[in-house]
């Protein structure tokens, strides 16, 4: 790890560990003070001037700590706003990947759905027709919704709301998939830690669960899936730094989803009834791992998209295409 990543890892771990059990409004000042939403923005504007690979450290940590605030979304929003030369607000910004509506002059009328922490954010960034749109949530009528992990995924209705726009081609949906891939990797790493720790402590038949081969073999699979998700995230973040990462993001989200599907089952199985209690700290991770598999493309979505691309290119192009992406 380079110096910046070590710094980011330490800072994020400290801030997010303190954030446990607090509301988004309570957490956000510490996150802002540490400058975490500005990992990707330039040093001149008060950011870290980091790369996506640097940001990975922070976003993975959000998954690891099951953070109850839209820090990954804010990092993406700050980066896009700066790149598109929108006035980058300092307050909490989230993003909306599902927008329906119309611009008329400098006003927007329409609906944004599945907005992470829409009720808590001050601003929301969305994309439509080759434009980035930055809106104030104060102008919206907010319908609260949530994902299976109880994370806010609100619907925001705007009527003739003032909007800041910039012409900018981007794929918000793919970028959200990139964020979720890293969060999945982070949550899996934590679920693995808990599973190893628990099976070493829990005694049955006069010995620790960890000493049973049946348990060891399952935990090995959990570790492998965690490693695969981590690799997929790291490679996709690097690709995002290098330019068009459409293929890598599709492959990485698909692989991370699969890892989450397999690994959550194992983590719960080795925890027995304890993992199923509201009190124990496994469920904030596993419920998110289930929710994030649906968000920004489930396995079906990305498999179809990748499968179409690969078939269209034909069997002769498959391997040359695959290796050309990293050369």
């Amino acid at each position, binding site marked *: 790890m380079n110096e910046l990543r070590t710094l980011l890892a330490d800072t994020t771990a400290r801030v997010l560990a303190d954030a446990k059990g607090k509301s988004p409004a309570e957490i956000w000042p510490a996150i802002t003070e540490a400058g975490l939403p500005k990992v990707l923005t330039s040093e001149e504007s008060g950011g870290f001037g980091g790369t996506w690979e640097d940001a990975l450290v922070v976003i993975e940590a959000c998954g690891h700590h099951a953070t109850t605030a839209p820090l990954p979304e804010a990092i993406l929003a700050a980066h896009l706003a700066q790149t598109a030369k929108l006035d980058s607000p300092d307050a909490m910004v989230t993003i909306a990947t599902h927008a329906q509506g119309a611009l008329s002059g400098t006003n927007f009328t329409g609906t944004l759905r599945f907005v992470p922490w829409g009720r808590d954010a001050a601003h929301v960034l969305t994309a439509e027709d080759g434009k980035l749109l930055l809106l104030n949530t104060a102008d919206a009528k907010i319908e609260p919704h949530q994902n299976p992990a109880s994370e806010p995924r609100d619907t925001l209705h705007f009527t003739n709301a003032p909007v800041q726009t910039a012409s900018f081609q981007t794929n918000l949906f793919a970028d959200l998939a990139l964020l979720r891939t890293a969060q999945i990797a982070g949550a899996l*790493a934590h679920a693995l*830690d808990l599973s*190893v*720790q628990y*099976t*070493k402590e829990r005694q049955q038949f006069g010995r620790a669960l*960890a*000493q049973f*081969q049946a*348990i*060891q*073999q399952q*935990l*090995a*699979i959990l*570790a*492998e899936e*965690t*490693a*695969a998700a*981590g*690799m*997929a995230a*790291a*490679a996709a973040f*690097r690709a995002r730094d290098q330019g068009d990462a459409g*293929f*890598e993001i*599709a*492959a*990485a989200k*698909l*692989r991370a989803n*699969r890892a989450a599907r397999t690994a959550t089952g194992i983590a719960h199985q080795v925890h027995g009834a304890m993992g199923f209690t509201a009190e124990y700290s496994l469920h904030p991770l596993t419920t998110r791992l289930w929710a994030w598999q649906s968000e920004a493309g489930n*396995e*079906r979505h*990305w*498999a*179809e*998209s*990748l*499968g*179409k691309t*690969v*078939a*269209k290119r*034909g*069997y002769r192009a*498959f*391997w040359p295409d*695959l*290796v050309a992406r*990293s*050369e």
Partner: protein
Amino acid sequence: MRKFHFTPFEMPPSAKALRAEVRAFLAAEMPTATAAEKSRSWSGGDAAFSKKLGARGWLGMTLPKKYGGHARSYAERYVVIEEMLVAGAPVGLHWVADRQSGPLILRYGTEEQRQTLLPKIAAGEAFFCIGMSEPGSGSDLASVRTRARKVEGGWRVNGQKIWTSTAQHAHYMITLVRTGEAETRHAGLSQLLVDMKSDGLTVKPIANITGESHFNEVFFDDVFVPDSMLIGDEGGGWKQVTAELAFERSGPERYLSSIRLFLEFLRVTGENPTELEQQLLGRLTAEMWTLRQMSMSVMGKLAAGEDPTAEATVVKDLGTSFEQELPRLVQANTRADVLLESGTAFDDTLTYLLQSAPSFSLRGGTREILRGIIARELGLR
């Protein structure tokens, strides 16, 4: 508890040109290779082909020049072998020598062994096999009983090895034998280089379920092995064998053994796949992309002089599970008219891989042993 570290690896700028060179060579060398031959991948072999690779400088690539090697990077070797595997080139005869015997001799061998053997490996003229398993020692490798008794000027070896791949074609075997007391298990083992033409050594091929004979029984009846053929330290065999494993467990051959069938499936599917076909193609592509990243990450660590044995174990289990499941998935998802037609390129590839796939999670350490190693790394045992 240990963390597994996987970091993206960037191919060096030289990779692109080298890849083009290898592809041009393969296109010229394999115009008449059949689908069945290509599906053999690194289980197929051709001595003339191995020699040509040697002449092109694509064997022993990472060995120093003074031993006939080419002082190329691990990444460059990786490029060459992944292109060979994807093309289904007959690389099986030199595979063990190039992958692990060469590096092992370079690291633990005597100067004399390096000077005599490494140039032959790099030329594609010396093939190696690995004498590890015995009738009573499979996964429990440390229980090997083949014994080397110290005699004047060397050793006398008695015992039997089994499941020894390509022993019938190999010039040398690097064998794990007991030189110490039986009770000492790991401590009493040594690696001896055995000339396969030695008196008292007999090779008996064993037919496998594909109808071919890839592995063998090898009998040692008072076989004399000179002192100069001990590799590394007497009693250091276990440590040396373990060091070989990072080379053996993480290469692209641990996820690409079924690549020919994936390509066949893609070919017969055509440009307009059904949703079901899209699903399978997408899933397999994502898996392959991830495995390649992981495999390259381990190679990067080897190149940097780190010890990625644990990560290599993860790659091998994930990779072999993938390449093993692929034939079953392709079979389950192929259109009946394509599936039932016999004697086609698709059918020949599927038929061979359905039958050979069970070996993928056995060879070089079973899935259960690998997972046991990972469990140990996790601190569970």
